[in-house]
């Protein structure tokens, strides 16, 4: 597996960041309805692909992408985290795209990546099962090769943006070991059920497969390592999103603390608030440092990358959850109101901490990796 993208010059990062921030601000949806996660508005999604090329950043140029690297993708997730946008980014470019690239399967890449890059295809990866374990040893979902192609049966759950996806990559066990398959959710034998999500800015689905027709993307020789690389990439992307979310929470808190007057003074002049904000900054910058280091290590395929991603995800999860909670506290009753943005970050932070394994799950892995 190679990372052959060309990295932007860091001087161009600020520009990319501004462009992304402006775009997300422009297409920020109105407050999500309470009863369900809103369906994806495909207009802005296509515009994002066409105007910004976000979905194709990681996709090599020969398949319609920009051939950039995880460094640029990290920026996208920081900005998406700030904006709290319900775009299916984590599924499509955080999971499915690296999975396809890591498969090394030229046919699959040629078939699926151009659609991802041009925004016409939303894709996701279904690996977790109803028990909710993000790093299981084996899967109950089984894949069988038949004369007319593969068939896959089983139940996947907590599938990110499963209800929106045009392509579902399914991880399953076959007689010869773990495989990764492409499933078209509109085929017979596939049932996609929306799950009511705590974080209404990211939809979740259960995908039930009954002898569903499937195409092999990675066989037993490749699938386990491809999955590991995909998860490392997704951890870095999610950590970047958490950094962006934490940054936004701190920004809101500081803004409010400067403006809001109580007892005749801006509340930010009280040490209780000022020191809380200072501690938030310390946590945010620590998380950012860990996330950036993890990104570099995954990018360079460094031997310590599993340690770095586990550290980043574990720390950034708790950082964002804490900052989102502090942001509510600093805003007082307003922070607790439905109309205001703060609670949506808190829900995003709560759910993001669980996705791809809890902070404790990652620390348990770290204890092994560090030989403690």
């Amino acid at each position, binding site marked *: 597996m190679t990372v052959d993208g060309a990295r932007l010059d860091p001087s161009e990062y600020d520009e990319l960041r501004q462009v992304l921030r402006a775009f997300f601000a422009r297409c920020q949806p109105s407050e999500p309805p309470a009863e369900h996660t809103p369906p994806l508005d495909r207009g802005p999604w296509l515009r994002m692909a066409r105007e910004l090329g976000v979905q194709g950043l990681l996709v090599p140029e020969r398949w319609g992408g920009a051939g950039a690297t995880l460094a640029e993708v990290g920026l996208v997730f920081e900005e998406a985290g700030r904006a709290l946008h319900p775009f299916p980014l984590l599924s499509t470019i955080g999971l499915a795209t690296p999975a396809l690239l890591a498969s090394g399967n030229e046919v699959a890449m040629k078939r699926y990546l151009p659609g991802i890059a041009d925004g016409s295809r939303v894709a996701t990866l279904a690996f977790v099962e109803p028990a909710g374990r993000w790093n299981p040893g084996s899967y109950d979902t089984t894949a069988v090769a038949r004369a007319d192609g593969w068939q896959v049966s089983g139940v996947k759950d907590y599938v990110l943006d499963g209800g929106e996806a045009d392509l579902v990559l399914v991880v399953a066990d076959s007689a010869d070991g773990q495989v990764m398959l492409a499933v078209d959710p509109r085929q017979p034998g596939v049932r996609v059920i929306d799950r009511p*999500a705590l974080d209404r800015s990211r939809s979740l689905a259960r995908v039930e497969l009954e002898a569903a027709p499937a195409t092999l993307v990675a066989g037993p020789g490749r699938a386990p390592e491809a999955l590991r690389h995909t998860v490392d990439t997704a951890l870095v992307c999610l950590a970047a999103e958490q950094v962006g979310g934490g940054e936004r929470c701190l920004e809101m808190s500081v803004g409010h603390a400067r403006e809001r007057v109580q007892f*005749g003074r801006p509340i930010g002049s009280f040490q209780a608030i000022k020191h809380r904000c200072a501690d938030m900054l310390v946590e945010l910058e620590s998380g950012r440092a860990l996330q950036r280091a993890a990104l570099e290590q995954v990018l360079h395929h460094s031997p310590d990358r599993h340690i770095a991603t586990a550290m980043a995800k574990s720390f950034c999860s708790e950082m964002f959850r804490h900052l989102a909670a502090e942001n509510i506290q600093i805003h007082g009753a307003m922070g607790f*109101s439905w109309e205001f943005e703060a609670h949506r970050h*808190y829900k995003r932070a709560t759910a993001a901490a669980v996705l791809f394994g809890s902070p404790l799950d990652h620390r348990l892995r770290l204890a092994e990796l560090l030989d403690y």
Partner: protein
Amino acid sequence: MATVSTAASDPDMRRVVTLVEELLREFPPATTDTTEFLKAQFDRGLAWVQFPAGRGGLGLPRNLQVTVQELLSAAGAPTMDHYLGNALGVGMIAPALVRHGRPDQWDAYLRPMFCGEEIWCQLFSEPAAGSDLSALRTRAVLDGDDWVINGQKIWTTAAHRAGRGLLMARTGDLESRHRGLAAFVVDMRDPRVDVRPLRQIDGSAHLNEVYFDDLRVPAADLIGAPDEGWQVAITIMMNERVSIGGGSAGEGSQALAEVVEVWRRREDRDPVMRDRLVQLAIKTRAADLLNRKAARDLAVDNPGPEGSLAKLIYSQLKQGVYEFGMDALDSEALLFGSYAFHHPEDHVPDGFEIQRHYLFARGDSIGGGTSEVMRNVIGERVLGLPKEPRP
């Protein structure tokens, strides 16, 4: 209970125990309508034993009410906190009415309040004055025999179902700060009172905005003097902290029991998680012990700053307990039922209670005085540390 047996040597205690026994004999809880029972309880002076005789009380030390509640609770009778949905009125506003109001006001308000016929709300906070009452802007202007009220309140619990409200309004100018405030009883059903529900983190509307547009309040409905509002507010807030902090005995234990249930459903009992749970169990025990002590120590009409201690502890504890609950749910924590708009009294359990309580617990350190304000109160009023200089 050790308390009862120790203190029963005391003639007041014996009197109260006898009255409770009579009440339970004449109105067996199992076969008596709740409202009827509560009226009988009020008439025997067992509503607030510390209140004057004939006004729901017996003029006895307030801590005897704890005994009354324990005995009634043991006999299956309705208890204030659990059955009335009027904790605000019964726990906070009633003591302020007795302390600052007139006997004719006691007669008019206490009995319907206690038996649940009239729900009360407390109209204090405003958009520009959350924790800082001295910045209130709602105005009351005397016009003949009426006060005319204009302004907006916010974060008002239960306003949507309240019959009466205790309103804090400014009778002086803005510069008079806390000195120019008055407390009024207002009729929440008056068309000049506009109640708009405020939806919160979990979709529920515990709170409301309340607008007053030339509401006329008879001068007789002023509580105390036109500049006594600040004192009324302090009485209410001290009681509020006892009430929010303390709530019913074992509030902490209840939250803990909920998450222990989730924990015991888990297949793997991770030792790190288990240790967190043990720590929460210890803190819960400490909080419940402290709270029971605070309830016993309460003197007549005079809850001290200990209520702030209990409120601070419980709000942190409940946040910690439900965070543990969410972590124990693992991936199930990703799911939630409905965020549909609802009033809290409409709530039907839907299997996502941990998630809902987790979200809602964030408000525990905000409502009824933020944890920051509680720490100020503890630092200044309990420990005697100097106040912040006024800018």
